[in-house]
């Protein structure tokens, strides 16, 4: 016993925390992020002011455009670069010797390692889950504020705009910063373990996808300071186009959260397809892995659609395009079709991992195998396919072409069949 203890201690001593390379200001971490964020913001500001001055537009310094380009696009990239998410790739691209990460299953040496870029899938899983719990609390607090306002008739605490912003940001945080990434975090932790893989297929991409998440969350929270994002989480045009400037914070936050989802999902797909342990065939994978496999397929196909819908809204707002301006032949229902083509599958993105967890937990604690394993997995695939054919059931009363209603109703009802199979099995 004593020998094994010493070996363990020795291993720790040999590895130790990696020696910090470079000066504090230049080394990847929070200090470097602190100066790189303003740097990138001013680069963005310079681009905007420069181009506007060259084009002779008045005023050259348009703060709204500066905030969109500098604040919401380049500053986050500065943050990611500063914290060190791009370090390996940058060194590789520039021809410097790269610094490979430690993959000896010692993801974190102390609590501080959870606040650094770390490529260990278990560390990232914990980072994901703790971040989502933070935003879950923030979103929950907003729900309490909404209820407090509703406790008595008339307006009591805030004006109507603030009230609308509270419930909009509440919903967005809960969906994009809690439900979706919380399952991604759990999957990060357990999927490689369940597959017998040493880590995810692309550990650095995995770290990057995590660090996009706090950016999106902070962006949504800061929409309050630029009132405001008050069109509900669905952000229906043209109401969203008429909203005050803060609405672009939501549009951009969805881009960052969406990018994070897509990166994680790709990572899961590659991991599940290529990194299964010998003997772990598709039909032997645990159902939780199956659930994450189908969820990831949904994310990869659907998420670009919400990104598109929010870009349309932001372009209408900032660049004065006319996607949803009826008086310029815009098409209002277009927004809803694109939006729900993501947001209905998003329901399954939020639900399928839950099905997977239920399958594992119930089967384990009843000490029995799953009753209809193959049919369970096939139902997941059926939900995946049908999930893309039901989006318009959110739009039955929206004024869309009436002939669309019955087919959409039929597919919506059909999706109950695989869902029922999952309950019975």
């Amino acid at each position, binding site marked *: 016993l004593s020998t094994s203890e010493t070996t363990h201690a020795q291993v720790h001593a040999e590895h130790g925390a990696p020696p910090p390379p470079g000066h504090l200001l230049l080394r990847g971490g929070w200090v470097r992020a602190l100066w790189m964020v303003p740097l990138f913001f001013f680069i963005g500001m310079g681009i905007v002011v420069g181009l506007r001055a060259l084009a002779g537009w008045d005023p050259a310094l348009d703060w709204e455009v500066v905030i969109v380009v500098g604040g919401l696009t380049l500053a986050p990239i500065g943050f990611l670069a500063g914290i060190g998410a791009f370090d390996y790739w940058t060194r590789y691209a520039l021809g410097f010797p790269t610094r490979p990460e430690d993959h000896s299953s010692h993801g974190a040496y102390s609590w501080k390692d959870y606040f650094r870029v770390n490529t260990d899938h278990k560390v990232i899983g914990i980072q994901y889950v703790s971040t989502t719990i933070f935003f879950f609390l923030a979103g929950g607090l907003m729900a309490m504020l909404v209820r407090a306002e509703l406790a008595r008739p008339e307006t009591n605490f805030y004006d109507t705009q603030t009230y609308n912003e509270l419930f909009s940001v509440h919903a967005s945080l809960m969906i994009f910063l809690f439900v979706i990434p919380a399952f991604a975090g759990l999957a990060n932790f357990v999927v490689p373990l369940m597959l017998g893989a040493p880590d995810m297929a692309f550990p650095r991409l995995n770290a990057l996808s995590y660090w996009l998440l706090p950016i999106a969350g902070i962006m949504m929270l800061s929409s309050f300071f630029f009132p405001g994002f008050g069109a509900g989480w669905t952000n229906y045009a*043209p*109401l969203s186009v008429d909203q005050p400037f803060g609405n672009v914070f939501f549009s951009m936050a969805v881009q960052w959260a969406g990018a994070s989802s897509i990166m994680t999902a790709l990572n899961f797909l590659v991991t599940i397809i290529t990194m299964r342990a010998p003997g772990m065939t598709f039909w032997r994978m645990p159902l939780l892995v199956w659930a994450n496999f189908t969820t990831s397929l949904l994310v990869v196909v659907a998420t670009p659609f919400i990104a598109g819908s929010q870009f349309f809204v932001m372009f209408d707002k900032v660049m004065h395009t006319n996607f949803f301006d009826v008086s310029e032949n815009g098409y209002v229902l277009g927004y809803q079709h694109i939006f729900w083509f993501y947001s209905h599958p998003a329901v399954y993105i939020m639900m399928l991992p839950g099905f997977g967890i239920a399958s594992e937990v119930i089967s384990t604690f009843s000490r*029995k195998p799953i009753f209809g394993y193959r049919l369970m997995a096939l139902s997941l695939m059926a939900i995946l396919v049908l999930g893309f054919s039901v989006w318009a059931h959110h739009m039955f009363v929206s004024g869309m072409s009436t002939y669309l209603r019955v087919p959409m109703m039929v597919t919506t009802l059909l999706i109950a069949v695989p869902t029922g199979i999952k309950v019975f099995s």
Partner: protein
Amino acid sequence: LISIALIVAAATTAIAYFVDWLPEQASEERQGMDLVFWVTVGICIFVFSVVASVSIYSGIKFRVRPDDDSDGPPIHGHTGLEILWTAVPTALVTVIAVLSAVVLAQNDRAKGTPLRVDVRAQQYAWQFTYPGKQKVTSTVLYLPKGRSTKLYMRSEHADGTPDVIHSFWVPEFGQKQDVVPGIVTTLVITPTKLGDFRVICTELCGLGHALMRTRAIVLSPEGFNAWIKKQREAAGGPPGQAGEAAFKSLGCVACHTLTAAGATGKVGPDLDNLDKESIPGGQSLEAYVRQSIQDPSAYRRPGYAAQMPPFDLPKAQLDALVAFVVESAKQH
């Protein structure tokens, strides 16, 4: 076990059916919708109760005893059962789909020649226009009982520029329909009960969304004809009478105080004292009233929120309304 589950399921379904959950039923369309609703909900409650009671029963009966560390029997796979619980939901779902499609088709069809009403939704008000030789405009929806009314709904401002998305809903009539800029949406209602119902906007449309409400009043066919005749006469009659009628039918009474019309609203400025208050920009009282009706945002009295919608009225009606408000205010 199965008999217990079935008994529990039947009991919960029956209880659910006999509790009065839904708002009063006041249109033929609602009857069809309620049928679909109860068939679907009945199936759901029944299936849920069976699953839940079997799960709870098994959870209690077959729970693990202390010190029992053995695995359960490895039962899995039974093709017959799996086919059964795929086929049963498919059959139930087919029934619901056919029923819904039939009801939907029925509800889209108006019976006989429908009464046409043009609806205009804008932030944050409804306006209903009854076309004819002499148009009648009202902010309260009047409908005849027993006859189909077809609403043609637009989301636009008085000058025809597009507004945001709204949604028309009367709980007692059942249906809901979005009012979308750039599209004319339609809705058929056949009221079956006299009464005074709520019209509610159910699509978040901005700051005043919660206040975007009005009423739908169902009259007997004779009552409705009398109402519309009176409106037409009033609009064409002497200015005082037409003005008072307009003041009442356009909904001014809900927000403003004006003794001559018996109005005691407190949301907007008190119109009795209009002539004693400062009028902006040296306008005449008459011009100021006219401007405030057509474009309330041109001058907003301090302390009042931007809640009043602009009104685009036929000239005769507007003249009568302005004259009535000015005359009534001067009496105080």
